[in-house]
């Protein structure tokens, strides 16, 4: 159905870079930035811009792990529910007087356990990840609902607030620094290590990868663990920022995170994508949300924009090739 032809002349590396998804997206990001600064006088303010980063840092941390998972041909729709469960676990621990270090450990451990649960179901039992994680999405958040009902946990230790509300230097928040560090780690991990190459190999041809000696199941399991861990980290940041836990925390984030990953040029069918693309997509989504927020556009209208963006960034290049092929 897809016919591929071999071009007569290869594009030069520079040309390829200029025509790449990432540069297109960067152009979009710059365009939105400029449009925003014209649309609202409050946009170009260091503190406002710093606030804007909170719109995407937590989601983006998960998006990096999700990008790897999607490149390998799997998906995890339970990430937002892992946040809810991890946050509930931390809330329950805070009630009995466990200190900040303990809370962080509990948040990370909950994320890891949830990720391992998904990973075992997908890799050991060979189940399709989209169904498994739709199931665990209800299960994890459902456990939070059983524990909390319509109640909320408050009363976190005061130094716990640093993760979501602290600033490292001037307007640079702790969350933003964490986001940047995680981005670099994932970028190196995916693009410069052996493990990263195996992720692409698995996404392109799992059976071929297996016969090339790659432990497909183990790699996928690790990716699910990482996604769980990142959800745990995001849960710590979000809980600390909000200072309270409700079972409905982070509802709908899984879709925004998948949107971010796809917008970043990761092929939803697996096999290709890059971390820089996801980073730029995170900024695009954060800037759109923040700019519209400054213009008093309600949240649900922003979601139209995000939804439209998701479809159009994929549709437009395809329409373009269809047009130019005529």
């Amino acid at each position: 159905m897809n016919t591929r032809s071999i071009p007569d002349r290869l594009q030069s590396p520079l040309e390829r870079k200029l025509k790449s998804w990432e540069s297109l997206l960067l152009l979009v990001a710059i365009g939105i930035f400029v449009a925003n600064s014209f649309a609202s006088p409050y946009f170009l303010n260091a503190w406002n811009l710093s606030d804007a980063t909170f719109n995407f840092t937590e989601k983006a941390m998960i998006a990096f792990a999700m990008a790897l998972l999607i490149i390998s041909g799997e998906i995890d729709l339970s990430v937002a529910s892992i946040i809810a469960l991890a946050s509930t676990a931390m809330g329950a621990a805070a009630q009995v007087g466990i200190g900040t270090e303990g809370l962080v450990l509990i948040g990370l451990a909950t994320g890891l356990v949830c990720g391992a649960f998904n990973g075992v179901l997908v890799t050991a039992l060979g189940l399709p990840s989209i169904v498994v994680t739709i199931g665990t999405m209800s299960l994890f958040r459902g456990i939070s609902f059983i524990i909390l009902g319509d109640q909320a946990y408050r009363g976190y230790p005061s130094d716990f607030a640093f993760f979501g509300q602290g600033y490292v230097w001037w307007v640079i928040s702790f969350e933003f620094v964490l986001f940047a560090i995680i981005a670099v780690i994932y970028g190196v991990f995916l693009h410069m290590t052996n493990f990263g190459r195996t992720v692409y190999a698995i996404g392109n041809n799992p059976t071929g990868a297996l016969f090339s000696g790659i432990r497909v199941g183990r790699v996928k399991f690790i990716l699910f663990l990482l996604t769980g861990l990142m959800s745990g980290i995001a849960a710590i940041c979000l809980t600390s920022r909000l200072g309270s836990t409700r079972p409905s925390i982070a509802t709908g984030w899984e879709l925004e995170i998948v949107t971010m990953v796809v917008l970043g040029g990761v092929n939803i069918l697996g096999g290709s994508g890059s971390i820089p693309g996801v980073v730029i997509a995170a900024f695009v989504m954060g800037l759109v949300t923040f700019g519209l927020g400054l213009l008093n556009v309600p949240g649900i209208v922003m979601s139209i924009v995000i939804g439209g963006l998701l479809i159009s960034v994929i549709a437009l290049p395809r329409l373009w090739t269809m047009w130019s092929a005529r």
Partner: protein
Amino acid sequence: MTKLLASREALLMLAIAVLLGIIAWRFPAFVAPSNLFSVFNDTSPLILLAIGQMIVILTKCIDLSVAANLALTGMVVSLINIAAPGLSVFFIVLIAIGFGTLLGMFNGILVWKLAIPPIVVTLGTMTIFRGIIFLLTEGKWVNSHEMSDSFKSVPRTDLLGLPILSWIAISAVILFTIVMTRTSLGRAFYAAGGNPHAATYAGINVGKTQFWAFTISGAIAGLTGYLWVSRFAVAYVDVAAGFELTVVAACVIGGVSIMGGIGTVFGALLGALFLGIIANALPVVNISPFAQMAISGGAIIIAVILNAQANRTPGRIILKKAEHAT
């Protein structure tokens, strides 16, 4: 006979019987015919949507926009009802089906003509449809007193002892059983999902078949939109929020393979009934309704595990598949 016993529909019927047996042991009133009819009536919207979703999943696609389509169509017909209270319900139903069909076709066109992965398309349209409701109403609700009496009465009107809502679900089950087993379009749905390449060589246009699947799913969602809004006599932005996952869950529990090509209308019906019985039984057996989410999540996971076991082909495996390797 053994084939019948081994079929997953029989297994699921057994599970439902056991479930009802356990409930009846403690609360005999639950299995009184009148109550079972009311459970069926309550589950009817889920049954309708599950049939549409099943057809989409058969073709290797997924429709996450059904609940948003339902909410948007419900709001549109409510607004039409306010603007023209005299308009006969017959036309309201036609408009609901027509409008839902258009929304479904929009999904279908993007999947067929632009070959955008269905999960991306419907993630996008899901947020767009809900956003449009907000644009139409600015977040206001349409309440019971604003709807005309005839608009509200249709789903509740009794016909031969059952409400019309139940009859619509029953007719849909019969109609689509015939479509799926006795028409060439029905065979095409199975073929397109079971083996797209073979289907193409057999002269089936896979993309077009997927387009029709989305169209049917949209039409059903539109009809259910009217039924939902008139039954609960209220329309607002978040009607049936998150219901798309319950619908997918019903299909998975009903033995519909997420990889496409496997599934029956009867299975989808049973899957929906299973979830419907659980939802209706929880308050009766004094389990907090907050537990419902975790239980349906657990049910999905158990269902996929059982389905995967049933699908294991017996015999010696010479070349393992990567998905099953660890």
